[in-house]
C-alpha cells in the first residue's frame, strides 16, 4: 500500500465520529499476498461486507465517507494488479461516491415519507447478499452425495434387454465430440486431433494386456510376420505414448537383454 494512500486513509477514516489513530490491522496486506487475497472476494458487495464487518460498522448506519475511502484503497490495488477484474468494482465506486454526495445535500423536505435515505438501496443489496452468503455456507455444511455422504450401491447382475436402451448413432457421437472440442478450445487447455486415434486404441489394448500379467516382454507386442507395418508402428507409438503419460514402464536389465514392459508403480 502506498504511503500516500495510507495518509489519505488516516485523514479520512473516522468511525462514528472517532478519528482512527492508526491503520486498522486488517487493512495491511503483504504485497505478494494481495493477489490471492483480492481473489477471495466474490465481488464488490462481498468486499463492502468485509469492510463493514471488520470495522464493526452498523450496516443500517453506514458512514459513507469511511467506507468509500477504504473501498477505493482496495479497488486501486485491484486496478494495479488485475485490471480485468475491476469493472464491477468500478461501477460500485461510482455508486458509493454518488451516495456520499447525496448525503451531503440537506433533505429537501422533512415531512415527506418517500424522502428515502440515499443509502437505502445499497443497504438492501448488502443485506440480501449477506443473507445468500450465509445460506450458501449453511448449504455447504450439509454433507452431500459425491462429497461426504455415501449411498449404498451394491451390484446386481442385469439381464440386459438391448431394446430398452437408447439408440445412439455414430453421427450423434461425432457431434458430441465436436461440441467438446469447441468448448475445449475455449479453455485453451487441449488441442485434440485425430492422428493419434489408432495409437489411443493400442494404448488401451496394451493396458488391458498388462492387467493380467505384471510383466510382458516387449517383443510379444509385435508380430512382424503377421502384422502390417502400420500396425507395428502404431503399437510402438502407443508404447512410447504410454511411457510418456507414465502409465507403463519399460525395463531392460543390461544392453541387449530382453526388454520388458510393466505397469507403472507409484
Amino acid at each position, binding site marked *: 500500500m502506498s504511503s500516500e494512500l495510507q495518509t489519505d486513509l488516516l485523514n479520512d477514516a473516522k468511525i462514528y465520529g472517532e478519528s482512527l489513530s492508526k491503520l486498522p490491522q486488517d487493512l495491511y496486506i503483504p504485497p505478494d499476498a494481495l493477489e490471492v487475497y483480492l481473489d477471495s472476494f466474490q465481488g464488490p458487495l462481498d468486499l463492502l461486507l468485509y469492510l463493514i464487518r471488520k470495522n464493526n460498522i452498523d450496516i443500517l448506519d453506514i458512514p459513507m465517507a469511511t467506507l468509500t475511502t477504504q473501498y477505493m484503497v482496495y479497488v486501486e490495488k485491484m486496478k494495479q494488479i488485475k485490471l480485468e477484474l475491476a469493472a464491477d468494482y468500478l461501477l460500485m465506486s461510482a455508486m458509493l461516491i454518488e451516495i456520499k454526495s447525496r448525503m451531503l445535500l440537506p433533505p429537501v423536505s422533512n415531512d415527506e415519507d418517500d424522502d428515502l435515505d440515499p443509502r*437505502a438501496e445499497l443497504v438492501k443489496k448488502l443485506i440480501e447478499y449477506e443473507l445468500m452468503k450465509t445460506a450458501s455456507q449453511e448449504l455447504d*455444511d*450439509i454433507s452431500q452425495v*459425491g462429497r461426504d*455422504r455415501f449411498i449404498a450401491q451394491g451390484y446386481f447382475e442385469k439381464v440386459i434387454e438391448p431394446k430398452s436402451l437408447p439408440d445412439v448413432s455414430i453421427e450423434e457421437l461425432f457431434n458430441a465430440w465436436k461440441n467438446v472440442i469447441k468448448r475445449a478450445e475455449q479453455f485453451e487447455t487441449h488441442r485434440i486431433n485425430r492422428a493419434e486415434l489408432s495409437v489411443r486404441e493400442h494404448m488401451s489394448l496394451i493396458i488391458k494386456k498388462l492387467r493380467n500379467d505384471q510383466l510382458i516382454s516387449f517383443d510379444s507386442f509385435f508380430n512382424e510376420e503377421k502384422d502390417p507395418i502400420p500396425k507395428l508402428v502404431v503399437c510402438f507409438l502407443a508404447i512410447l505414448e504410454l511411457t510418456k503419460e507414465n502409465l507403463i514402464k519399460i525395463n531392460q536389465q543390461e544392453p541387449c537383454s530382453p526388454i520388458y514392459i510393466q505397469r507403472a508403480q507409484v
Partner: protein
Amino acid sequence: MEQSVKYKNIIETALLTSGRPLSIDDLQKLFEEKLERSTIRMLLDDIKNDWSEKTLDLVLVANGYRFEAKPIFTDSLMRLSPDRAIKYSRAVMEVLAIIAYRQPVTRGDIEKIRGVSLNPNTLRQLLEREWVEIIGQKEVPGRPSLYATTKFFLDDFALKSLNQLPDISNSEDKISNSIEENLLSADASEQINDQ
C-alpha cells in the same frame, strides 16, 4: 410370516443395490403381486430397525428411500478415494444458494444479488450436476431462462423438500424490521463525519 420376510429381503436388496432413492411406487414394482403401500411402509420400518445398530441408515429423501453410510464412517470413506470428492467453489455454492432460496430466478437476478457478472461456467457446473434446471422463460424482453433446483438437489443434500433448507428467515425478519426503523432517520452526525 415366512412371506413377509421374503418381501422384506427383496426390498432390502433393491435398496442396497439401486444407487438411487426408491419411492414406494418403485418398490411396488418389485413384486408380481400387488402389495399395499401401507404394507411396504411397514416393511421399510422393519428394515430401518434391523439396521439401526449396523453400518447403514435407511433414510427418506425427496425421491424416496435409500441406504446411506452412518456419519461415523465418513472420515474413513473419504480416505478411500479423495480424488472423488467433488468440491465446488464459493461462487458455485453462492449461485446454488440463490437459486435454492429465491427460485425461480433468471441469470440477471443472480447477478443483481451477487453484484457481479456471472461466469457461464458457474451455472454449467450446477446444470451438469443436475442440481439446477431451466424451468421456463420469463416473459420479459429477451425471455431469459428461469432457473430452479431439481429433485436431485434435494436428494443429494438429503432433504425431503425445499421446506427443509436451513432456516435463514430469522435473520431476514430481524433485518427487514430494523430497516424500517433506522434507515429513514438519516442522522446528522453522519453528515458531519462526511465533511
